[in-house]
Every structure is written in structure tokens, then in C-alpha cells.
């Protein structure tokens, strides 16, 4: 089956993406559990670096997939990035209002950037993986579900 061979070719983008999200969330929990008091930043920086590395690796792995529907990917991703940039901005606003500054602000902001990029990547990938050009060409219309 063409869809089965396509699945075999795809890297584990969703799994790696969720691992990256888990690292960012862990970093966010660590920071939030200490704020507004002083936060030793080393653990948060390590978690952020690992998460960003997974994000980078994910994108690199995906860039090597032959025939991946990048048009569809970017069609979805650009609107998802806008939406998650807005939500990340609102969350950051709450922290800024409370006077967050310095290294903690930098780490938190970068964490939110990774979040605002990786979630759209996951959404766009999930859509585009089922929209590969050869899948569209090979789809048979006779198996569509009944509407009545």
C-alpha cells in the first residue's frame, strides 16, 4: 500500500516533538515553581537547550523526506505560528507585568519561542503527512463514506 510505504519513510516527528514539548514544559514548571523569587537558571537552560536540539533535529529529519508536501505544511504552519505566537505572547505578558527580568526572562522567552514554533510544526506535519502528492494521485473515490 502506498500509504503504508509513506508511513515507513517518515521520521518520528510527532514523538520527538512531544519529547521536546515535555522538556519545555518541564523547564516552565521549574521556573514557575521558583518565581517570583530567585531561580537558579542552569536546569532551565539545559532543558531549553535539549528541547531546541530536538526541534532542530526534527526539522532536519523532516527536510530529508522525499516528496513531503511542504506547500501544505507551510500553508498550515504559518497560521498556526500566528495563533501560538499570540497565546505565547499573552502568557509572557503575565510574567512581564510582574517585573520578570534578566536571565530568567530570556530563558522563559526562548522557551515560549520553542513552544510557539514546535506546536505549529506538529500540527502542520500531521496534516501534511496525510497529504503527500502521490497519495492524492492514487486515492480512489469509490470508498468515500455515505452521507445518508
Amino acid at each position, binding site marked *: 500500500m502506498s500509504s503504508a510505504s509513506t508511513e515507513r519513510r517518515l521520521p518520528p516527528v510527532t514523538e520527538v516533538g512531544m519529547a521536546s514539548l515535555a522538556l519545555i514544559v518541564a523547564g516552565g514548571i521549574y521556573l514557575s515553581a521558583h518565581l517570583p523569587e530567585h531561580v537558579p537558571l542552569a536546569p532551565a537552560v539545559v532543558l531549553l537547550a535539549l528541547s531546541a536540539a530536538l526541534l532542530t533535529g526534527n526539522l532536519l529529519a523532516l527536510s530529508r523526506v522525499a516528496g513531503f508536501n511542504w506547500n501544505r505544511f507551510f500553508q498550515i504552519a504559518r497560521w498556526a505560528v500566528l495563533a501560538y505566537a499570540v497565546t505565547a505572547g499573552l502568557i509572557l505578558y*503575565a510574567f512581564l507585568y510582574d517585573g520578570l527580568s534578566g536571565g530568567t526572562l530570556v530563558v522563559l522567552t526562548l522557551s515560549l519561542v520553542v513552544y510557539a514554533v514546535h506546536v505549529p510544526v506538529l500540527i502542520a506535519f500531521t496534516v501534511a503527512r496525510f497529504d503527500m502528492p502521490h497519495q492524492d494521485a492514487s486515492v480512489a473515490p469509490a470508498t468515500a463514506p455515505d452521507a445518508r
Partner: protein
Amino acid sequence: MTGASITVGPAQAPEQAGAPPARIGFEVVPRKGLIGVAVVFVALIVAIAVNKLWPLMFLHVVGGAAWTIIDLFVGLVLGPILGRLSIPARIELTTRLMPKMVLIMPTVVTVALAAGWQLGNKLGFVLTSSPDHGWVVASYVVVGVMAIIALGLLEPANIAVLIELKKPHPRPEVIERLMKRFIYSAGITGLMQIATLVIMTRLASG
């Protein structure tokens, strides 16, 4: 904002004998709903800026309650029902419900979290010296796990199902696979919301 609805294709003409069934025309992201989202986000910004107790409490409780109740209802009640509906009924419910979920869930989650953080700051719950700090951190963990599942599995499946249903010939096996992911993820987050209820009522009762 013509792209906000991410419409993939036009609705089909009414079905004819032997032809594929007609699809319901729908927007993946309802454009009119974005107005409501904008209003809610402006209210959130104002509430944080004025930093008064009632607006923060209102937004956090309403946002959090909406998030909890929707997760519980969709995960534990509607999800199993959806799985037992006929295919046409399932498609109709999906195309009417899920576009609204695309807007509602990120909105209530963002409001609950941002207002909740500000409220916790105002009431002192977030301080490490607070006697309830452990419960607050526990809520961070629960919310964090739910966020990973919702953002990594649930939301992508939600969008992908709607995009697939907009195609001239949606593939049943793709929709079934994505809906299973959506329903199971919603079930897991629904169960985790019970932990949220325990923690939040514990915090509120002192």
C-alpha cells in the same frame, strides 16, 4: 484574513445517484469566532493590567472551569458516543463541533493559565513560602502533562481531520485513525482533569 479559515475546497454539489456523498461546507477555523476570541484576549490583557482580584478570579475560574468541563464531557461522554454513531452522523457532528473546538480550547487554556498565574501571584500562592505551594506545583505538573497531550496529539488531530474532510474525496481510514487519536487523547486529558478538580478545590478551601 482570507486564509484564517484555511478553507481547502468548496462544498460539493448535492449528491446524485451513485456519486460520492455531498459534503457539508464548513470552515476549519470559523472566522466569525475569531472576533469572540479577540474580545476574550482583550479582557485578559485588561484584567492583568488592572490587577484587581475579581477580574482575575473571574477569568481564571471561568477559563479553568470551561477547560475542565469540556475536557471531561468530550473525553468521557461525547467521545464514546461519537465512536458509536453511524458514519454520516459522525461526520456531521465532527464538522460542526470540531471547528468550534479549534477556537475554544486554546482560548480557555490561555485565559486560565495567564489569569491563574497572575492570581496566584496576587494571592501569594506561587511563593515558595506559601503553605499551599506544593499543591500549586502539583497543578503545574498536571497542567503540563495535559498540555503536552493536547498540543502534541489532540490539536494536530483536530486540524488534520477537518482538513481531510474538506477534500473532494476524504479518506475514511485517515479520518478514523485521526479521530481515534483525538478521542483517546481527550479521554486521557479528561481523566487528568479530575486531578485538577481535586487540587483547585483543595486550594480554594484553604
